[in-house]
């Protein structure tokens, strides 16, 4: 299992040495990697909205918040209304697995699995946002402490029967027929994405007070149990 939450940034930086502790990653390399994104996103002087919104001043921007007439997915609008802002942590989580951070996003990108790749792309995008100084403790480039999910947590085999009981709490709001009017669907989630998303709520990376509260009191075992249950009924 490669399920990792927002991880690697801290570890990668430690590996790179203290002298570069205020750098996100290698912007030059990030520019090359950005070719994966540039079919839909423009960045830099004169950048405009295309298939995706332009990415100038993305750091600190509210999700779904680009000025102008870009038409976002309902999922991104909802995330923005709930308070999701693009900072280093949230962008990193989004790049790693877009749908695990924002349900219903139209960004058809499978995700960038290598932490260093994400760090490099974000270092490149960082050149086109305000607040030119990278200060580890301050927004928008503040870094969370190391939060890798330990392998033993990832290896937890959930009890589907327990998951079924726990899932009853979800179904007060989320419809089991998969309808997603007003509230995102929770059916047919890949198990791994589900675990990532729940830990993202638990860590308050994903916005939304109800979900942060619900996930906040779930133990690692309980998240695994829920994931096992939802995987079983697919």
């Amino acid at each position, binding site marked *: 299992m490669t399920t990792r939450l927002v991880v690697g940034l801290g570890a990668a930086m430690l590996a790179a040495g203290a002298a570069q502790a205020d750098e996100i990653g290698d912007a030059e390399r990030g520019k090359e990697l950005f070719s994966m994104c540039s079919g839909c996103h423009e960045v830099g002087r004169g950048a405009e909205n295309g298939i995706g919104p332009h990415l100038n001043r993305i750091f600190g921007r509210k999700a779904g918040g680009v000025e102008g007439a870009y038409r976002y997915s309902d999922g991104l609008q909802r995330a923005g*209304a709930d308070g999701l802002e693009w900072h280093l942590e949230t962008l990193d989580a989004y790049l790693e697995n877009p749908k695990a951070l924002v349900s219903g996003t139209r960004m058809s990108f499978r995700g960038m699995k290598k932490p260093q790749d994400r760090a490099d792309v974000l270092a490149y995008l960082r050149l086109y946002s305000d607040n030119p100084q990278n200060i580890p403790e301050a927004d928008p480039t503040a870094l969370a402490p190391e939060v890798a999910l330990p392998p033993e947590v990832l290896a937890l085999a959930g009890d589907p029967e327990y998951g079924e009981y726990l899932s009853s709490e979800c179904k*007060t*709001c989320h419809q089991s027929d998969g309808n997603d009017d*007003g509230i995102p669907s929770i059916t047919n989630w890949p198990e791994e994405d589900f675990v990532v998303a729940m830990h993202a709520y638990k860590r308050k990376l994903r916005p939304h*007070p109800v979900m942060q*509260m619900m996930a906040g009191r779930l133990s690692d075992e309980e998240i695994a149990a829920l994931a096992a249950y939802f995987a079983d009924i697919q």
Partner: protein
Amino acid sequence: MTLNRRAFIGTGAAAAALLSAPMLGAQGKPRVVVVGGGAGGATAARYIAKDSDGAIDVTLVEPTRAYYTCFFSNLYIGGFRDLSSIGHSYGTLATDYGINVVHDWAVGIDRDAKTVSLAGGAVLPYDRLILSPGIDFVDDAVPGWSVAQQNKMPHAYKAGSQTELLKAQIEAMPEGGLFAMVAPPNPFRCPPGPYERVSMVAHLLKQINPTAKILVVDPKEKFSKMALFQEGWQKHYGGMIDWIGPDFGGANVSVNPDQMTVDIDGAVEKVDVCNVIPAQKAGRICDMAQITEGNWAPIVPATMQSRMDENIHVLGDATNQGDMPKSGYSANSQAKVAAMAVRGALTGSKVFPAKFSNTCWSLIDTDDGVKVGASYEATDEKIAKVDGFISDTGEDAALRKATYEESIGWYAGITEDMFG
């Protein structure tokens, strides 16, 4: 075959009479009788039937064939929903879950014999009984008002014809007329309910009768989401709503339904519509079962069992349980804990630690939704709050709109969770 026959009988008119026939008893299976088909009872019946895969015989006793949810009934008053959109039937519970749905009143409980008797004459034996009867009103809570006066001064606190009547009365108010609400003392069903209703009445009047006024007399110093409602009333309905708390006589109120007057601490007001929401107590079947202490039925948090009788579980508004508000969401949450405990006791299925939660959404005006919620755990003494949140004053319009849309999603979710 059994399922089809049951389904047919369950929704048929002769249900109560036929049920007493011995052929229909599911011999040998443990029997659960659920009284009350609202957010607590319907959810409990559905979860027990669904999760026991036919190993438990479930009977749901509910007098009405068309159940109107109290939640969202204010939105009907405001014109955001039509009445049919908050009405539900029990057909799916009968056909898809094999629940015996009996449309009758439970009129007596024999705790020693473990039977429930119905107004139609049937006697239902149970191994476990779940009571989820909702609320009744405390007699003489508002001097001058009694249930016999409910057509002159509606309570509209059990949804359906009362809600329709109240809305019709508001629509018939003379130009510039006065709508009065007598708000209830704590604890009562749906703490933000009266204030969401005031918002929805104001929304309706603003369109059809903009010079009309609203007077709220309240025995409480504070109410749920008070800052949010007051901010919204100021913003959307400035000058229309007067709220009179106990400092100005809100706790010393009587009414005269024949004269259509409200006496507030000696000052008599002539009103055009009066919505009296009296003090409340557990649905009267709890008194009949002698499981109440004061106005409510105390329960054991981990299982929702009555503290007076381990074979009876009590859910929702009727309970005295601790920190949870009396809400449909709470009842639905408690029902799942009770369903798990009942299955564990009757079939030996695994029982996990109880978890409870609640969220209450309220609509103040078009696309202006707010919410409050919390999570809870079972302690020996009570259901205790763990964590919570509430909307902030001054939130931007996009968030308020998203909150309203979320409440619509929740309504679809919880009603599917109740009725299948």
